[in-house]
């Protein structure tokens, strides 16, 4: 039983002539909060999308809980237990906030068209469970009172929390957060940090790609640093802060040091 929930071996991704991810080997420990950082253009987003299944690797392998993910598309990965959020939110504006979270229960529910069309008891029973669980996740992120609201009527910070609730509703073992702190104010970032810690207590492993150093240093138990598609360092937050290679990489990118 390995203690790493996610591993990549020799992972590469090239777009035409540009190599975005260059032979990256990494290992994410189960239950820990891991952060992937790096200057702009380091390949963080590409790596993220490779893990999420949006891109297929040019070469190399990703394995989840010991099994290779191969070319599993995103919807299969969600069923396996990998959930993700999006940098540009992507909430469903054609349903309420609660329904958004209920959709997250899709891979954990079973009833299909026939049961729904004929309103069989199985459908009704599962709907109750879905609704209940969704409410719980909504409360977990602190949005319980907005259950019936249209998600677009919520401020950005709360929209992002809603997407986390939706991702949590898939009952994942691994949660991928794509720049969750972007666009949030200091108070909202604090709330986010607490939420991520609570998620950790639930036994879910979290990987976050993030630019905000304070946020990262505050909650990450392990930090992986990328630059120009390659992994240049990894360690605890304090180790990374003192790492010369990391500092050098960031000196070329002033905004991140702020």
């Amino acid at each position, binding site marked *: 039983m390995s203690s790493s929930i996610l591993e990549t071996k020799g992972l590469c991704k090239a777009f035409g002539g540009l190599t975005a991810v260059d032979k990256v080997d990494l290992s994410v420990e189960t239950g820990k909060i891991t952060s992937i950082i790096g200057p702009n253009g380091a390949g963080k987003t590409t790596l993220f999308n490779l893990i999420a299944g949006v891109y297929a690797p040019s070469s190399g392998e990703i394995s989840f809980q010991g099994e290779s993910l191969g070319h599993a598309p995103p919807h299969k990965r969600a069923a396996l237990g990998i959930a993700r959020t999006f940098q540009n939110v992507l*909430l469903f504006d054609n349903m309420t906030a609660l329904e958004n979270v209920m959709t997250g229960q899709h891979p954990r529910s079973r009833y299909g068209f026939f049961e729904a069309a004929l309103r069989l008891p199985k459908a009704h029973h599962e709907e109750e469970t879905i609704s209940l669980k969704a409410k719980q996740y909504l409360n977990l992120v602190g949005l319980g009172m907005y259950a019936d609201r249209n998600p677009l009527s919520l401020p950005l910070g709360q929209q992002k929390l809603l997407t986390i609730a939706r991702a949590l509703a898939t009952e994942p073992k691994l949660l991928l957060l794509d720049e969750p702190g972007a666009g949030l104010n200091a108070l909202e970032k604090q709330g986010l940090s607490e939420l991520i810690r609570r998620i950790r207590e639930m036994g879910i492993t979290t990987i976050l790609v993030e630019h905000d150093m304070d946020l990262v240093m505050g909650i990450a138990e392990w930090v992986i640093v990328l630059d120009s598609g390659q992994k240049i360092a990894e360690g605890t937050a304090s180790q990374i802060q003192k790492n010369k290679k990391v500092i050098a990489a960031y000196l070329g990118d002033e905004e991140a040091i702020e």
Partner: protein
Amino acid sequence: MLARLKARGAYLAIAPLLVLVVLAPFDWFLGDYTTLLIFMGIHTMVTVGLCLLMGYTGQVSLGQAAFYGLGAYGSAILTTKYDVNPWLAMVSAAAITGAFAYIVGYLIFRLKGNYLAMATLGLGLVIVILFEQLDGLTNGVRGITGIPRLSIGDFVFDTAFRRYFLVWFFCLATLLLAQNMVRSRTGRALRAIHGSEAAAESIGVNSAQFKVKIFVLGAVFASLAGSLYAHNVFYVSPGRFGFLFSVMLVVMAVIGGLASIWGAIFGTAVVRLLSDKLLIELGGWDMIIYGLILIAVMIFVPQGLFVGLRDTYERWRLRRTRRGAVT
């Protein structure tokens, strides 16, 4: 709270519709229009499938007439040439049509691209060719006559009055099934795909598969409608199932509203009345009017006319209640 009120409001809207449906064929009410109303019911079944398809997959099918024709011919051939029980024939035709739609849908929806419109156009043309060429089976251009009436035991659906209720029973059942589906987990998945396909995929929704399912559903509805058509007119010929009818169905769906279920009745009614009462000739004017409707509705009310009207009404009602609260 708001959701529950909205649901009750929806039921209130349906009540008068139901009353209308029940009273319509009586001579003292709309009896003269019974045949028109029968066709409205049959076509609504096809339209609702198309509304769902366009609303949730973002692609257009120009071949619903083909599935309708498959249902009609399927019932006609099985009942006249092979003496199959009409109900069984209807179900069989629907199953075959569904399987066929599954193959087409599978090929098309795995691709990122808008192939459905053209592919279904081609499909529609080919199926009409098949109806004309497979002389031994379909009687070619002469068509098939002598299609039996539907019956349950000793009760035969022969008069227009009885057939009307049969058709509308099926129509309303179809709409209710569709409604139940949309309110369920499947419907949520479909709405998720409509909202953001990438996000839907991220929560485990296989969008391609769902699109295929909706396409098959629409085809099955169309096939059932076609069978009902056969058992109402007692004659089928290739001419009725061509491109023009497919276009008419798209117009019905556009007026009814993309992703709308009950709007399908509205859209079908409008086009049926237009074509039967105003545009008597099958000349260029049909094309001109339908073309203008399609363009105008998509420019000004892209969610579909009925849906657009309903949303405007909702907004007006909200504004009134807010104003009332202030005073």
